[in-house]
């Protein structure tokens, strides 16, 4: 996987963020265009290619979620876009509460605030299970583990969208 190669890493899901940073800084010092301002055209081009790849790689790998998404894609897996079925009932009620607040029904606010807390909790849980799954997969790479990761990522993404919508509505409303 080229992003791992760019940082001189084995393709593993669990990465030490300090080590990652150090690799990024060391390679930036070596390859940044500033180091080649008096170089040949080829050297300049190579430096630009190396650093733009390095920057892309660091940006993608430093965040566990984008890292896992990249890892799945590179392993030939499509990311799922469906709503997680276990959340359907929750979403239904949430939409009603959002609607009520928009219509000026302040009693819905309490419900939304508690939903906000619940979603933040879910994100935390998702992050914890991701790191457990990462370690599992790195220990014993198998397809089933990747499937679990994909499901967790999908759920996490969905919850983070819900959280964004709730926060947006709460903010808009309190600003008025």
């Amino acid at each position, binding site marked *: 996987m080229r992003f791992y190669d760019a940082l001189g890493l084995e393709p593993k899901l669990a990465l030490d963020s300090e080590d990652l940073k150090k690799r990024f800084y060391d390679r930036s010092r070596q390859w940044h265009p500033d180091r080649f301002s008096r170089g040949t055209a080829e050297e300049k081009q190579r430096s630009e290619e190396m650093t733009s790849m390095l*920057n892309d790689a660091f940006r993608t790998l430093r965040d566990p979620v984008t890292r896992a998404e990249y890892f799945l894609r590179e392993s030939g897996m499509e990311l799922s876009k469906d709503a997680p079925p276990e959340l359907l009932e929750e979403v239904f009620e949430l939409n009603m509460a959002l609607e009520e607040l928009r219509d000026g029904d302040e009693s819905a606010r309490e419900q939304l605030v508690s939903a906000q807390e619940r979603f933040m909790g879910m994100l935390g849980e998702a992050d914890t299970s991701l790191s457990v799954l990462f370690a599992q997969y790195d220990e014993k790479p198998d397809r089933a583990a990747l499937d679990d990761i994909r499901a967790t990522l999908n759920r996490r993404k969905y919850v983070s969208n819900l959280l964004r919508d709730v926060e947006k509505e709460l903010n808009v409303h309190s600003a008025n």
Partner: protein
Amino acid sequence: MSTLQIDFGHAKPRIVGIDLGTTNSLVAVMDLTGPRILSGIVPSVVSVTESGEVVAGAEAREMLITHPERTVYSVKRLMGRGMGDVQDELKLFPFHIVEGSESVLKLQLGDKIMTPPEVSAYVLRKLKEDAEDVLGADVTQAVITVPAYFNDAQRQATKDAGRIAGLEVLRLVNEPTAAALAYGLDKRKEGLVAVYDFGGGTFDISILRLHDGIFEVLATNGDTHLGGDDIDNLLLNIALEDLQSEWGEDLSGNASLVQLLRRAVIQAKEALSFAPSATIDLEYGPRKYQREIDVQLFNRLIEPIVERTLGPCRNCIKDAGITVEQINETVMVGGSTRIPLVRSAVERLFRKRPHTELNPDEVVALGAAVQAGILGGEVEDKLLLDVTPLSLGIETMGGLMSKLIHRNSTIPASETELFTTAVDGQTNVLIHVLQGERELVKDCRSLARFDLKDIDPMIAGMARIQVRFLIDANGILNVTAKDLRTGKEHSMDVKPSYGLTDDQVEAMILESYDKAEEDFKERQVREARVEADAILGAVDKAKEDDAYQALADAERATIERAINELRLAYHSDDHLLIRDQIEKLNQATMALAEAIMNEAVGKALKGTNINA
């Protein structure tokens, strides 16, 4: 006079650092001891004299009053912008825009018509000459600073200005990042720094992480049309209203008076940073106008402007993924940060007293010089990792913008996209590249249209052209296309939405070249004369020495002749002739110099004996 000289040789040419500001510009260079400002502040003002000569700097600033119709200031506000962008500016600034230029603005100055990059090039040329005078060597390479929030067209326009001025622009550096370099904040090995840069016409906020000499920008935000200018305009409008009621006439059309009043307003504004009240003081012929403004009123007036800087600050903190408590230091840059209300607003937001040790007018140029040192290889322990301030994307179906490179991505940053044909036999594909954060194309900034042409006619969807979008270390977009079927570069036509085409810039460079050669010759003569003055002075002094009388008559005659010949050559405009005569006088005084030197050494040795 033969003197001992330390020859720095013709090693590497010096790269200068330039702060091309809205109000003032400065040039600096990296020395062994650190960055150093070369010569004084150059007002970013350009004027055309009645004889058609273009002047820049302090001289042009004087002409703002005497010849406002042929003088332009704050042209940075027009860089890389189109007619549609500047309507608001035109209400506030006396720009004389020539009608009928949409993608490139053209300004009328006397009988000359110039684009904003050409106007800026005159300021840059003045800085270049000042630097050359101080360094005594040609300056051809520069680092120029730009507001961090400048878009691609504004950056490109700045680079064009450099090229027109005869400077190879090795790097565009963001102003707040340059300031961070100048502050030497990396003495703190690790930490988070916020740079608040409020200048004459632009506002930037950047948040950086420092790590062992690496300055990594985490996020940047700002407003490229918010600055001290706006405060001046507020006060100016109040004064103009006063005049209308006191003098009974609308004077806003009297350009010369408006400029005088503007100057008075700026003086009052600056005084208010140090005093509880100040007076706007205007004398216009026999008429006088005075108005006192106290700090309370001033603060009330400018509060909305100061408030407008705080939104971008909050967004920047959020984008950086940090909280305000994590920020270790705050740095103030730009003349407008002298205003106490600005300082207190920043202190309140960031919850710590900001750094104001360095002169806020000089810190950006000093930082540009440090970056010049990094590029020149003299500074090895520092490295700047900057970001692109705006997202880059392409137009997709339905007038939507599809983002390819997100804002605050470390640059250089690149993304590739595969393009194909939609109908059978289609031979070209048009790619519309945009910059901005909004979803609709119409709310984003159009950068350019790329036409992938000469595609072999084939069934729809068969063509495979890979286009690479690269934002380089200057924050400027580069696009290349490769035909995946043949593996070859695919040609394309580029039509920038705003700004000059390469051909136009080339033409401007050629145009300025004749003039530049003239300027260059003049400078060489000036330099030769400075040297002649030095040697003539030294010889005059030497003639008073006993050693001179001890010379043979013939030797004294040779020296006298050489002096006369140099004095004659002095007034010619041939620098080579002057230098020849300097050399002859040098030769003629060789023996004299030696005699004086021996005498001095003898005295010194004697002195040693006595003290021993």
